[in-house]
């Protein structure tokens, strides 16, 4: 299942990735190969198999509505590249 270059560009845009022309071609090939591999699954007859959700989990376990302590602010922000006023500081986002 060969992806088009345009599809690669679309996926890159959704992932906010900037790709060079060489990378686009490289990823087009690699992603196509992955899709081909996954397409093998289509060879199975799944007509009588219900769709799966939740991976290997079969039964939903619900949690009692009780709160527990959260992370400390320091621990939370420790690995953030930038923080200010106890918040994550990121490049400007406008919508």
């Amino acid at each position, binding site marked *: 299942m060969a992806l088009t270059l345009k599809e690669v560009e679309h996926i890159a845009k*959704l992932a906010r990735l900037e790709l060079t022309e060489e990378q686009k071609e490289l990823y087009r090939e690699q992603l196509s190969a992955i899709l081909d591999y996954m397409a093998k699954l289509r060879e199975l007859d799944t007509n009588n198999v219900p769709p799966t*959700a939740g991976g290997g989990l079969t039964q939903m376990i619900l*949690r009692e509505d009780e709160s527990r302590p959260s992370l400390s602010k320091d621990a*939370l922000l420790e690995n953030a590249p930038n923080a200010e006023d106890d918040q994550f500081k*990121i490049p400007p986002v406008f919508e």
Partner: protein
Amino acid sequence: MEFEPVIGLEVHAELRTKSKMFCACEVVDSTTAAPNTTVCPVCSGMPGTLPVVNQKAVEFGIRVALALECEVQQTSIFARKNYFYPDLPKGYQISQYEQPLAINGKLIIRTSEGEQTIRLRRVHLEEDTGKLTHVERDGKSYSLVDLNRAGVPLLEIVSEPDLHSADAARAYGEALRDILRYLGVNSGDMEKGVIRFEANVSVRKKGIAGADGHPPLLGIRTEVKNLNSFRALERAIEYEIERQSKIIEAGRTVEQETLGWNEARGATYSQRSKEDAHDYRYFPEPDLPPLVVEQNWIDEIKSKLPELPRARYLRFIEDYGLTAYDAARLTEEKEVADYFESAVRGLPSTVQPKVAANWMLGDLFSLMNQASKTSEFFKNSEAWNRVRPEALAELVKIVSEGQINQTSAREVLNEMFESGRGAAEIIAARGLKQVSDESFIAELVSQALKENPNEAASFRSGKTGVVNFLFGQVMKKAAGRANPQVVRAELEKQLAQ
């Protein structure tokens, strides 16, 4: 050219649970809490963490679905909605897509045109997002992220495009807010952003039927996001109806797009162009198995549903003889309706419930308003405790028995509200008890007529309107405490002599 607007609404309501949707972080008021104080590895999207669904959030969702007469699905599925925006650090929102919690409901709204049934497409569970603040500081521009709200349970309620005016959309929003409050699943505090709207708006030429007797085709719609108040909802829809009508009238085509609402400018603006149309790449959440809801749980939740605003509204009109307007105001908030019914229970059967309604909607509400500065004053338990329903009933009873007149009663209510004391006690302390003694009143009337011979004469010569002046003179002498009916009767009697 006349246009018919077609509107569908998506309502996002936070669910008032103790903990978040998929983790045990406390749900706090994100408008006031210190930033990032209720965030854990799950809701901050750390690798290797797993979501676990909050049972109460599911229960609240089912409660709302049942109140909206939806079919609750035995099996529903959580899905990932993928998008890149820093309000959710995982890079996706856990939501429900193909198999929502509930489908096919309805909500009956009231507008100036009467009642209307709005069909509901679906109700599903998801998580709220964090809060971004855009900062301009020292010549630099950046954003700050607070994740306290990220992961708070959120219920999305989607209507069919059955609304045809901004007015109806507002009525729908308000009816839904009232239900959410009655169910105890949401505070209804619009100013805190716990209920948000998205409106899908299109217009079509009126009176043009579709082919083969089908209803007319829908026009191209726009989606207005992030409407956080009823006013914004109403104004944004009105703006879109006018904007789209003008475009079509000019022979151009409305562009399908996502719009924001600028409150200050009172205008919508383009947020995303068509090329950037949503591509959320939904897929079933691999970390959560299907949500299976047993019928006996649904039945149990159903059996505990409170009487809902519309049922109560109809019952108030039927049982208490209230006007539609009064019944609507009294049933908007559950606490207000409860208060009214408690007060009515304290009234003797000779007093119409309508009288208690008048006292509540008039004097008591205005006292509450002055004291609490918020329209939702019944949430302010302090104000609500100052005059208990039994105390109001006592006052209404005393007035109905003619023990004090209306003017005195107002003063008494003021003092009850200020001091928390009972009506009888205040009346006794201030000597406000109404005088109905006929010989005493006859004496006052006779004095007043003697002091105002000209007015008495002009009454007798046919200028009967002057009786109000004379009535005022008598009441003045009685310091407002004379029984007005007795005074009027006595005045008429003596003037006829």
